[in-house]
């Protein structure tokens, strides 16, 4: 493989699904880049310089210029390197892809996060919220805009697969750590088979961290959260 290019550098965090989105897009497009792992507890001067407003990862530096926010980075990559496109060509299909990416970040993601963050009393309600959001996606795969497709992008992974897929592995992790059922293959057969197909892609396997590592991380964070909340009572 070619040595890391000086042109592209990614500031990221190994457990950040937003970072994984960008890593996956770069991999799908065959783009070489330098990766710098950020310690989110002690953010680097580079991160603070290039993302002063949000101070978050991922940050893509192209020729030293920062591009921020994962979905915006995906658009930037697509427009700068149009081979292996992530976005559909038709304007209406692009609007649909953007809308569903918005739903992932606005509704589904926070709902999954809420399951993890909820105290035991709130868990049932949080799980139901996740199911409600998964039903939206399942319906779209069954009868809606993405009916009959293997991936949201069609035969190949597209932007919505990247956005939804990088993050969906947390479902399995939270199921184990929280001892809840989030993705019942019988209730969400199409979502389940899409996720399985997505996770079997070579490029995806190369990006997503090992499940043991994610489990250990999630257990640690959960312990810390429970410890904090008991202190607050």
């Amino acid at each position, binding site marked *: 493989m070619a040595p890391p290019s000086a042109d592209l550098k990614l500031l990221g965090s190994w457990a950040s699904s937003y970072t994984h989105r960008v890593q996956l897009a770069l991999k799908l497009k065959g783009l070489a880049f330098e990766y710098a792992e950020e310690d989110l507890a002690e953010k680097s001067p580079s991160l603070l310089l290039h993302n002063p*407003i949000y101070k978050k990862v991922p940050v893509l530096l192209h020729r030293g210029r920062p591009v921020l926010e994962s979905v915006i980075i995906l*658009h*930037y990559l697509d427009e700068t390197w149009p081979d292996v496109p992530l976005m559909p060509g038709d*304007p209406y299909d692009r609007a649909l892809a*953007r*809308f569903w990416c918005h739903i992932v970040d606005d509704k589904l993601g926070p709902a999954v996060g809420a399951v993890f963050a909820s105290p035991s009393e709130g868990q049932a309600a949080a799980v139901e919220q996740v199911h409600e959001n998964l039903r*939206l996606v399942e319906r779209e795969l069954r009868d809606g805009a993405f009916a009959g497709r293997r991936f949201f992008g069609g035969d190949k992974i597209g932007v919505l697969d990247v956005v939804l897929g990088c993050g969906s592995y947390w479902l399995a992790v939270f199921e184990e750590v929280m001892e809840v059922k989030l993705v019942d293959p019988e209730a969400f057969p199409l979502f389940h088979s899409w996720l399985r197909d997505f996770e079997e892609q070579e490029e995806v396997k190369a990006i997503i961290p090992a499940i043991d590592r994610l489990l250990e991380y999630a257990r640690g964070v959960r312990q810390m959260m429970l410890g904090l909340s008991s202190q607050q009572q």
Partner: protein
Amino acid sequence: MKAVVLLDFWASPFGQRCRIALAEKGVEYEYREENIHGDKSPLLLQSNPVYKKIPVLILDGKPVCESLIIVQYIDEAWPDRAPLLPADPYARAQARFWADFVDKKVRRCSPCVRSMSSIRNTAFLVPSNVFTHQVCESAKKLWTPKGEAQDAAKEEFIEILRLLEGELGDKKYFGGDAFGFVDIALVPFTTWFYSCETYAGFSVEEAVPKLVAWSKRCLERGSVAKSLYDPLEVYEFVKKIFG
């Protein structure tokens, strides 16, 4: 039904973004007012089942939801005139970032603005109850009577405006000489400044004079002038909700 339909509410800054974009492109469309004090129309519920909110742009029966997604769609569907996003990918990324910043930050400070796109059933007894339960903490503090909390909300709001003014700099518009995506994302909220000032007791012009000058330049454009409402009308509307 005409080929292009916009489901909207007159005072919604999100709807206004779409109206400005359509006007910039010279696109003929049918405007349909959704009644904020009534039931949601079947067309709205069918077109936006996930959020049940305006604005929704409907093209030959196919809906597009979320104002910034609608504006990008308008730009891509009518690419031959008045580009709303710059051609260069890096400049486009910048424009998307700042439009997203407006969505993340500016709308948080305006509770009525947040609730504009969310039309509730009027089974509620008192109009203010319809909206107050939806607002985020800092917004409540900006709009309700005095105190430390309101001062903090005011400071936060001014800081956000200052960041935007910093990004504008001495340019004519956010994108440079051409009116575009960030201008469209932000300008509808400027008609709410008068209401914010009156409720929270401060002057936006004193805090961010360049931003106010920019808003006046935008109002000189036909597309903006005909899509926005006078700040006093907005204020009357706000008073009805917050008293």
